[in-house]
């Protein structure tokens, strides 16, 4: 039963509520009131729920007794998660063969090639082809999306399979575990906050993040040894990242709130560095990129440009270091960055694995040797971290060598990894989905085109799929209702595992302009001309000729599935000095805009410039308050099809330190990253009837 607290306490509660609401949190009066109300820090002790009931499951598999032996078969009640695992209906009872259990996330699954071609298949073939006899079995327990916590659980469960060896190919999803660790521990959180927001010291923030990450990784290694017992052979294969051909996404390039005139300096250096590289001037590129890094060590783009300059000089080792550093800026959590292996994770494993008697296969090193010191890119990777067939071959060769050595076998070299290949269709689908996946995660036209062309090279049939895909992406209807998706799903059974990739986030569809253009161009090389079809469809679905188009819908500005990780506002927020919108217009038709915008915190009047296809069409006075403007773009600047509208925001000359909120921990990111401008309505039309004129 509940005991009714005394009504005399109501006055105290009122007083305490008033004090707390006035922004105080720890005065003597407050502490006294807490005490009188009997509110301590121990009230939730008995409400914590303890772990799930042990069912003997291993992931989606449940134990079953068959002919006196325990086998593991897929549990129908966990069917929703079947596609996260390999296509293996039953794990048999252990026989006489040496059992290697493979654990890990999507890399270990062979994402985009699976089920036609997986690391486990290649490893099994290599082990048995190169041992004296058929003496190994590889159990594929890899699971898409698995983080560190899940990996521990799966490992613990998998011990029931009596493995002779456990192989981890994992670690790409561990940033989430780090974030969890920080969010659940006040002392960690306040250290990060002090460094990043209060002291605005990005380098020390990174040191703290890396220190915590290293601690987390170390605890994992210790867990593996403790739970597995002292004798269990364990190998950890450290993944690699697509350093050369996976670059920071738009969301990862949000600009930091740099003090003083840091933002202006950083942007100037960026423009100069880009220009220098365009002109192939490596030395000037290096100087300008270094200026960017000095101003903002948390931003990936300075490192990437610096790496590009060193690549011009064929200085691969230097370029590699900077590309790794660029990749690792995802630690600052600007956006929902895709999985990756951080350098600190790799270094911790390399340093501490031996202490826990864990063998290591360092795939970054393996790839580097394979490429004679060059940097891995689209040859070994389909996207940010998932291997191509060649990547799987090379990585599994190294793993097989290690497994054989640990089990006392000598590799015979009879079956080379390169001889184990997927069929053409599997290759083709992998490249098609690589193109789609890279587009969703903000990669540039060049890489998308590469994968489209590859896909067509492997299979002419893929052209049909591309045509339907282009149709679907240009529709304003959600993909899940499009006729073309139905055709894709029924027409190609190989699609089913990746059909999720054909569905966009709710209310988050984009036109995928670069990808559609890349497909159209690739199709052209195969003799298919889709240009007119795409232009007409874009016009019909998105054209401003007959309708007022809301440019704030994701169709007209988003170029990736990036999602800012801080507070989301009800309006558009520009996190770079320029905002780009896409407009489907017609040549020689004027376009009218209705826009309401502001520059938050701007004390005096400022100006924004509005450009269409790079030509300035207007300059608009803005302030810290919302103002509404009616603009007209002259007909002669508009072109048929996609036009770009650029809003160029004022760049702050002088920034004071971010305002400190005493309690809002969730606002760390908001304080760390800068907002250049905000737009609350932005519509475009060529039709005067739907245009709103300000009087």
């Amino acid at each position, binding site marked *: 039963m509940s005991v009714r607290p005394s009504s005399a306490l109501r006055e105290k509660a009122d007083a305490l*509520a008033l004090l707390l609401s006035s*922004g105080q949190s720890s005065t003597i009066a407050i502490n006294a009131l807490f005490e009188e109300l009997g509110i301590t820090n121990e009230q939730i002790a008995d409400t914590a729920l303890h772990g799930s009931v042990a069912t003997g499951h291993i992931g989606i598999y449940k134990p079953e007794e068959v002919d006196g032996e325990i086998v593991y078969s897929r549990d129908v009640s966990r069917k929703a998660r079947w596609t996260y695992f390999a296509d293996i209906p039953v794990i048999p009872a252990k026989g006489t063969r040496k059992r290697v259990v493979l654990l890990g996330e999507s890399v270990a699954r062979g994402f985009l090639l699976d089920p036609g071609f997986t690391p486990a298949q290649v490893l099994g073939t290599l082990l048995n082809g190169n041992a004296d006899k058929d003496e190994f079995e590889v159990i594929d327990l890899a699971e898409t999306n698995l983080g560190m916590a899940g990996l521990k659980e799966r490992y613990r469960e998998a011990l029931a399979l009596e493995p002779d060896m456990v192989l981890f190919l994992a670690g790409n999803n561990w940033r989430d575990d780090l974030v969890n660790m920080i969010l659940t521990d006040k002392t960690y959180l306040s250290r990060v906050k002090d460094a990043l927001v209060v002291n605005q010291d990005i380098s020390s923030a990174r040191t703290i993040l890396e220190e915590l990450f290293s601690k987390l990784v170390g605890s994992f290694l210790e867990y593996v040894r403790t739970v597995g017992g002292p004798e269990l052979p364990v190998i950890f294969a450290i993944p690699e990242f697509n350093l050369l051909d996976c670059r920071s996404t738009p969301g990862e390039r949000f600009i930091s709130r740099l003090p003083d005139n840091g933002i202006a300096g950083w942007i100037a250096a960026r423009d100069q560095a880009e220009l220098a590289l365009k002109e192939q001037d490596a030395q000037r590129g290096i100087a300008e990129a270094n200026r960017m890094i000095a101003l903002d060590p948390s931003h990936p783009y300075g490192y990437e440009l610096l790496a590009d300059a060193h690549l011009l000089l064929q200085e691969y080792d230097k370029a590699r270091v900077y590309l790794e550093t660029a990749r690792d800026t995802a630690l600052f959590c600007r956006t929902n960055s895709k999985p990756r292996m951080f350098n600190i994770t790799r270094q911790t494993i390399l340093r501490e694995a031996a202490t826990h008697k864990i063998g290591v296969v360092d795939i970054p090193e393996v790839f580097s040797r394979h490429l004679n010191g060059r940097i891995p890119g689209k040859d070994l990777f389909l996207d940010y971290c998932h291997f191509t067939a060649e990547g799987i071959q090379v990585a599994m060769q190294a793993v097989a060598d290690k497994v054989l050595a640990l089990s006392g076998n000598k590799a015979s070299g009879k079956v080379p990894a390169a001889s184990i290949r997927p069929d053409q269709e599997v290759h083709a689908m992998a490249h098609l989905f690589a193109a789609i996946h890279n587009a969703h995660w903000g990669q540039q036209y060049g890489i998308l085109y590469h994968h489209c062309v590859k896909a067509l090279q492997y299979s002419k049939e893929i052209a049909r799929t591309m045509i339907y895909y282009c149709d679907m992406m240009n529709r304003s209807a959600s993909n899940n*209702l499009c006729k073309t998706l139905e055709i894709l799903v029924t027409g190609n059974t190989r699609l089913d595992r990746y059909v999720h990739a054909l569905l966009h986030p709710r209310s988050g569809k984009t036109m995928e302009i670069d990808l559609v253009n890349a497909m159209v161009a690739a199709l052209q090389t195969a003799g298919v001309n889709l240009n007119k079809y795409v232009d007409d469809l874009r016009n019909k679905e998105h054209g401003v000729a007959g309708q007022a188009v809301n440019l704030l819908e994701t169709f007209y500005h988003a170029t990736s599935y990036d999602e800012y990780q801080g*507070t*989301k506002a009800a309006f558009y927020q520009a996190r770079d000095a320029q905002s780009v919108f896409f407009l489907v217009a017609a040549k020689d038709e004027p376009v009218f805009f209705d826009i309401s915008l502001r520059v938050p915190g701007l004390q005096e009047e400022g100006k924004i410039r509005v450009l269409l296809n790079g030509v300035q069409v207007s300059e608009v006075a803005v302030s810290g308050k919302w103002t509404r403007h009616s603009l007209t773009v002259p007909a002669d600047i508009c072109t048929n099809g996609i036009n770009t509208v650029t809003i160029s925001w004022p760049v702050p000359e002088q920034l004071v330190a971010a305002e400190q909120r005493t309690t809002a921990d969730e606002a760390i990111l908001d304080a760390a990253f800068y907002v250049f401008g905000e737009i609350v309505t932005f519509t475009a039309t060529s039709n005067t009837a739907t245009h709103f004129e300000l009087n």
Partner: protein
Amino acid sequence: MSLNIIGISAFYHDSACCILQDGVLKAAVQEERFSRKKNDPDLPKAAFNYCLKEAGITISDIDCIAYYEDPVKKLSRQLWSGSRFITADSIRNTDHAAVERQIREQFGYDGPVRFYEHHLSHAASSYYYSGYDHAAILTVDGVGEWATTTYGIGKGAKLELFEEVSFPDSLGLLYSTITSYLGFSVNSGEYKVMGLAPYGKPLYVDKIRQLIRNGEAGQYELNMEYFDFLKGEKMYSEALPALFGLAPRKKETAILPVHEDIAVSLQVVLEEVLIEKARYLHEKTGAENLCMAGGVALNCVANGKILKSSPFKQLFVQPAAGDAGCALGAAALAHADLSGEGMTSQLEHVYLGPSYGSAEIKKLLSATSLRYTQHKDDEELVKQVAQRLAEGKVIGWFHGRMEFGPRSLGARSILADPRGADMRDRINAMVKKREAFRPFAPAVLESATGEHFDIDHPSPFMLETCQVISSFDLPAITHVDGSARVQTVGEKTNPRFAALLKAFADLTGCPILLNTSFNVRDEPIVCNPEEALICFVTTDIDCLILEDFIIDNENNDTSILEMINQNLLERPSFELNPNVYTFI
């Protein structure tokens, strides 16, 4: 320049936003309809944007944002109640100015924000929209800040609450506690208990009376021995099952006669208390009109009895009587404060959400594989639909602006012929997948109401029950006790729906349709044409009407669309703790 006021309810359950322009309610919508998270409690950002767009204004045109609750008073009550989920540090680390800060940051708004107490907002949501110039006001819910029941009076533009019952004494929490004990979810299963009641015998009235003690004036008290909600974990103590001599019903297990008996006993006691308090309120105010709001006012069975058994002559219940409706109340209070005036007229309809034009729908349909027909002539359209209804088909009906509040009233509705014996089971099996014991509600042509239902006034919001007196056998919409929860449809507020009822009557003689909300179980009611299509392809609805367009299931093979939308679509969700009232 107009006076533009935004009303907000949020951070509890079922957040909502509305806009009043010069005292006229221009738009109102619950955030769940946009976010698709059932009972979404987050700041209603999409609803806010929609309201501005509908009123044709931008943020700088807003004169005031009115918030439906006083966060300081609410905090005080939370501190007092000693929930296990509160610790000194968790309280210290909470930003207690968060409500205002979030409104400013996330809406980008820097004008005035006014806070109105929760029950004052409930009261205003009823009185100011009632069209009465003078009325007594009764609000009853689980809890707001401290108040759980209030008594007030409205006169012209002035509204005053003169007495309140304080937490933890609460009729709403009593109802929720029994709801939980009977194996339904708190905050959403209460109306199931109401639906269960007519099946039972009031054998437990004495036991229920032990849970609540009547007091002086407007007061009453809960016997806390039987309750446990102060700790914030569950609703009832061990003493409650002991009192009934019956273990709590587990969710999704069989409903026994004893559960029905307890449900009706609760209903009886609730009505007793409400009638007595209504009499008291009449005595105090002398008003002829009664206005009600608060979650308990959604108990339409009780409402009818209150009107019948108290001296009040007329009753107005805010159709969104739950917390979403508080947004309307807060906005009306701000309007009265700023303009010195009340509202201009009675709330005549709740078609306050978004609508979608034919061009847009045609573009959508042409991207799909679906075969459809378009009927630009209204008369032809309703004839076609009536024909299908008469053939026993189940129709998804999407027309005009979406309803505000918990009920579908002919804008986003599933419609069917109420005469068939098996219609209730069919609809339950094909789309609603809900408890078979609850009948559906009827919509009836206003002019024909008296022939079929024992009610002498319009009931446009489905907030009252009355006896079915029709010569038709209407099993799908008639409760076991012969009652129905009726919606009367007038030509003025929803001409196309009225025309459909008329066309159906022309064909069959019956001016009544079964009307239930257009959604699948546990999801919000559909808002836009895409959601209607998804609902159509993933259920066995026979025919979908999207404005002027008719899409027949029999002309389409929707199996692939069904597979895609059933299995692959991400469904956002927000789950309330089903075991306890959300206090924090």
